[in-house]
């Protein structure tokens, strides 16, 4: 992708968890860093997230998961992305993610993992680096 284009990110809250502070402040930080940010709102099914990602032609889907269900949710979404030929979109995952799960997520095909406590700078750099 060309560097003049703004990166389009969908910050999405999959599932039933409603703790959205992290998702919202990351959305604000990415916006201030010059990205186009779409926020999904709460309680999204993976189908809804896929639909928004397609409609908004995003470059990145950033999932925010605090409930501990990051492994099954990510695995399922990656499967759906492949099925629908949307595996060009990079998937990142943030939230309450124990360290030992990071390699598992990466192995599944998650491009970057940003556990709680990751600095805005590292998230922004991490996302930009996906397109270098």
């Amino acid at each position: 992708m060309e560097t003049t284009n703004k990166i389009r990110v969908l910050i999405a809250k999959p599932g039933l968890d409603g703790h959205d502070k992290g998702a919202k402040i990351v959305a604000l930080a990415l916006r201030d860093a010059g990205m186009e940010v779409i926020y999904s709102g709460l309680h999204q099914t993976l189908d809804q997230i896929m639909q928004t990602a397609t409609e908004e032609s995003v470059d990145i889907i950033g999932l925010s998961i605090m409930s501990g269900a990051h492994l099954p949710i990510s695995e399922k979404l990656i499967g759906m992305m492949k099925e629908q030929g949307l595996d060009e979109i990079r998937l990142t995952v943030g939230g309450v993610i124990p360290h030992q799960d990071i390699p598992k997520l990466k192995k599944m095909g998650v491009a970057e993992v940003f556990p709680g406590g990751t600095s805005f700078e590292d998230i922004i750099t991490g996302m930009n680096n996906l397109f270098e």
Partner: protein
Amino acid sequence: MGVAKYIKDERGAIKEVTYQSGITVKPVYGPEDLKKAGFGYDKDLGSPGEYPFTRSLHPQSYRSRAWTTRQYTGFGTPEETNERFKLMIANGQNGLNVAFDLPTQMGYDSDHPLAEGEVGRVGMAIDSLKDFETAFAGIPLDRIGSGLTINAVATIMMAMYQAMAENFGYSKEQISTTPQNDILKEMIGRGAWIFPVEHGVRLVGDSIEYAVKELPKSNPVSICGYHIRESGATPAQEIAYAFEIAKAYIDNVVQRGIKPEEFVGRFSFNFNVYGNLWEQIAKFRAARKLWAKMLKNEYGVTEKKKLFLRGLFGGGGSGLTKEQPENNIMRGAYYALGATLSGAQTIALCSFDEAYTIPTPRSALLSLRTLEMLMDEVGLRDTVDPLAGSYFIETITLEMEDKILEEMKEVEDLGGMVKCISNGLIQRKVSSQAYEYEKGLQSGEYRKVGITPGKTDKKTETTDVELHEYNEAWAEKSKANLKELRLTRNDRDVTESLKALEKAARTNKNVMPYLVKCCHAYATVGEMAGVFRETFGEWNEPEFY
């Protein structure tokens, strides 16, 4: 440094301190400060146990009775939750504080597609009365009260608690339950809402009305400044927004022809202990006073006990760090100190591993022990309101009172809390504050021990934290139980009770007695919430920026 703003000179001496609520702190306080603030003992403090209760709700406070400890517990299957309940009670806990899994909180049964991967994960999975019977088996319900952390479907869980107790031979007059039941705060933070704002408030009103008439020992609503604070509100906003939410519920019940005097005594609050120690103490003392004043002056409440701001001061989740999690043990102890210095009635502490996982028995016990140390070793029960009369504390308590009133006025000028939440104004404000605070933390303007500004500390592997494993078998077991239930219950009772519920919901009748009937018929949470979903629809969250 800390959550307050500190300006230092070139030698590192502190020049200016400003608390999050906007209070500026002087280096030294003296009698002139109290004079300047117009402080008067009788007017601003009163004796402990006397209006306006700044010092304490009870004349002897912890001398007569230590605070209640109520750690948050519940996970997996009702069987496992029951074991953990019994463990906590055996270790001296005198009230339960029950966690539900997300499908239950959102009104879905364990076999609903949206429940996949979530059954029993963050709390116990409840599908029907059968599960409540298992979870509370052998718990002396006439002696142990239960806080139920449930909001959108709080009416359902309250009904289920009553039905369960009745099946165990207790009368509804004997039992004491405190469902959280604060839907407006879910819409600001935490996010477990389902129905549109006005229907959500109506259900809260139904439960209050029902408790007034039928459940004399239960407290139908626990208003949570806690989560609002966690979402980014200042301590002054935490109290102000909670009080504005309380006003919205009071107004709903008053419209039903019930006087505030008859029900405000049943309200309780849940406030956060995270933050600057002195600011928290000022917050709690000011809150007790303002609540009593507001009920007396605006709602004409006269009976002393009904003016009490009762509640749980605890948690402190925002203060915990993932880095160096053991540091959270000490943090928790300081938060608990703040709560006990403020005369908290009930306390629950976040366990040190909660930034990662559901507390293990070991970490949950550490929290209990922390509170016991304050109670039995350190001397927090020695005297009532030990900080009273401090030039500093009394001055900032008065300043905090003004800040809270300013925040309340702002909400009222904008049309009240229901309006400010419906249009997303409060959510946007709180989120943008959370963002600014996080930026300050990352730039080093604010400091948390163990965190290096601007750095993601990848090296701090937290091998010492034992993770609470999610067990796929929980979901399977819940689903199997549900299947069995659907085969064995009396279908006609279920259908008829749900039909009656639908009619009550549609015709603005109080839904509570209908829910109790549904629960006795073993209708599921998903079925009852489904009736509400059909009747009320679901809320569309306003844009947040």
